[in-house]
């Protein structure tokens, strides 16, 4: 590593920071000014964590302001207020909506140091060379554009990325095994009359429709061409099945926010519902048995990434690239993986996790000791295994990615009818 005009004191502080320092190329001439830079990032609460902002200040010297919003608000802001942010932390399906507005700028892949190590899902869509690509808005289909000013998506890898992948996971149904008392193996159970008045689905149309489609397909009622891009007829049939179930009193409630899903489950109002992985943890942390049930049809998956605002340039743009490289360098990855998400560059995250943590979260091994999340809450005891197993098992059985459909507007109207039914 070439020699220090390294005036970032903070980098030299402490062993961990020194480790991080050695991983970076020599700092640029702007090292002195960088402390004055403030980058404004907004995104969903998932990865917009204050710890990340603090660590950025420590490691990189500049200020990262974070705003956490729900996914609807994130989409709105990215699409309508390009001046209000520097970095957008959004999901790939949101990118599909937002990218054509031209509010984000493409990122030069050659400036991304760990690009080669990014998981295949985000590059050619394949986890391993044999994998089949799941339905829906698979990240690689909206991950690249043709040039620095491209507003359309490239069909294969190019030198210009739309989003740098940061975090992703595989979602499934959450259940209360203590109140159900028998094994649950298929998505079809959501509409099983046995759970009448005790089921729930999320009321975010773009995601809810996918869960609904997983259920209808599992019931054998509908065979979809592409669950992530349904035809009007498929939407009609799906909503008809769910409307009928709703009228028959299958659902206790629909939820829109994380907290609602936790409360529904923890209070026992609901015993089976669509759920997000941290919500399961939140229920468990109250001492209530809750399982993120792997199902034979596979998972509905989602992925997020960070995109750069069109307005970034000069020093701030350099700082943003520095931030991206730091993001993929492992500390954030470890931080997120210890909460049950996956990082885009697992190899580097491994350096920031203990062997036990890596074994439990990534390899699907039995925990050898208590597993705690970064906030100190116990997530699992020794001997427990992660629901769904290893990274390859979970991300290898993704049936569908969160998506935006061509018939989105029609779908939304149908969803509204379903809610009003």
């Amino acid at each position, binding site marked *: 590593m070439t020699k220090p005009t390294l005036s970032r004191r903070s980098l030299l502080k402490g062993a961990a920071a020194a480790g991080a320092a050695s991983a970076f190329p020599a700092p640029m001439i702007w090292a002195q000014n960088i402390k004055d830079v403030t980058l404004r990032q907004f995104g969903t609460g998932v990865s917009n964590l204050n710890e990340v902002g603090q660590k950025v200040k420590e490691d990189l010297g500049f200020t990262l302001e974070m705003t956490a919003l729900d996914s*609807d*608000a994130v*989409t*709105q802001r990215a*699409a*309508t207020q390009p001046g209000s942010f520097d970095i957008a932390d959004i999901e790939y399906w949101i990118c599909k*909506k*937002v990218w*054509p*507005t031209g509010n984000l700028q493409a990122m030069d892949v050659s400036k991304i140091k760990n690009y080669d190590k990014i998981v295949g899902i985000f590059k050619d869509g394949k986890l391993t060379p044999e994998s089949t690509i799941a339905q829906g808005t698979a990240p690689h289909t909206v991950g690249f554009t043709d040039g620095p000013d491209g507003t359309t998506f490239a069909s294969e890898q190019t030198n210009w990325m739309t989003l740098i992948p940061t975090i992703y996971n595989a979602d499934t149904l959450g259940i209360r095994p203590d109140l159900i008392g028998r094994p649950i193996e298929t998505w079809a159970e959501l509409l099983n009359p046995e759970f009448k*008045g005790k089921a*729930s689905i999320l*009321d975010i*149309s773009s995601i809810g429709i996918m869960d609904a489609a997983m259920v209808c397909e599992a019931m054998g009622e509908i065979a979809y061409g592409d669950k992530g891009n349904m035809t009007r007829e498929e939407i009609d049939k799906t909503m008809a099945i769910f409307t009928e179930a*709703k009228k028959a009193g299958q*659902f*206790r*409630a*629909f*939820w*829109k926010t994380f907290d609602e899903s936790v*409360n*529904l489950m923890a*209070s*026992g*109002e609901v015993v089976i519902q669509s759920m997000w992985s941290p919500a399961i943890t939140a229920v468990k942390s109250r001492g209530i048995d809750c399982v993120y049930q792997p199902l034979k049809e596979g998972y509905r998956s989602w992925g997020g990434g960070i995109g750069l605002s069109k307005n970034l340039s000069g020093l701030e743009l350099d700082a943003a690239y520095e931030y991206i490289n730091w993001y993929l360098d492992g500390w954030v990855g470890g931080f997120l993986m210890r909460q049950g998400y996956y990082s885009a560059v697992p190899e580097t995250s491994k350096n920031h996790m203990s062997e036990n943590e890596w074994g439990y979260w990534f390899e699907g091994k039995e925990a050898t000791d208590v597993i705690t999340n970064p906030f100190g809450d116990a997530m699992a005891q020794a001997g427990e295994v992660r629901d769904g197993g290893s990274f390859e098992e979970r991300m290898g059985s993704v049936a569908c990615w969160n998506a*935006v459909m061509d018939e*989105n*507007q029609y779908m*939304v*109207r149908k*969803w*509204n*009818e379903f*809610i*009003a039914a």
Partner: protein
Amino acid sequence: MRAGETNRHLSGWLLASPLTLVLILFLVLPIAMIVVVSFWQATEFSIIPAFSWENYDFLFGSPVTYRVFGNTIKYALIVWAFTLGIGFTVAYFLAFHVRTQTWQIALFLLCTIPFWTSNIIRMISWIPFLGRNGLANSALISAGITDEPLDWLLYSDFSVILAFVHLYTLFMVVPIFNTMMRIDKSLIEAAYDGGASGFQTLTNVIIPLCKPGIMIGTIFVVTLVMGDFVTVRFMSGSQSANVGRLIQNDIALLQYPSASATAVVLLITVLMVIGILLRFVDIRKEL
């Protein structure tokens, strides 16, 4: 002489202008904007500012719209009936049964105590209370009134209306209490002297004199309920819809023009309701 007159003219205009400006800027312009946008079109990515009836076509062509408006009006009517009943009784008690002014003020303040917290909190606190394993159900079961927990207590029309009544009754109490306090006590004595029974005094003297208060309370409650979207969402567990939620969903999905169209129709509906109400009572004259 002439100069003085123009001056007076001018100062009149100047005096009126701040309010006019504020109203134009913050009331007329936004509403005009909503009306304009309601004729536009939107795709996922952009808003197309070209005149089109499409939003209204869809709105009036969809059975959902009628169902949702019907639901909204149903909520408004039921909530109105309950808040009026409870509000009038409370106000009557405060105004005519509580004799000393100190007690009147103290009890009146007591009514406002719930308003010291946010209305979201007041609403959400019902959820654990009414839940399947909540206080209400465990009380009912231990009292032997039911064997099974009652599911309809929460996430139903019942819970929505309960929360509305809880939230908005005070808006009925205050204006009715206010008009009741203005009633000349000698009128009531005169009614008794004239041989009217208590009930006759109520229907022939007190209620007619309270009309402006009832009307103001009604306007508050009806407009609040018709414009609400939060209470319906939380208390019905997103299972019921009213117009506010329709608009909210559209906004969340960046369908601003369609949201505007719904908002315009809602605005017209509410204005019509208020127009009808005002035909019954001339608030200005009676205040």
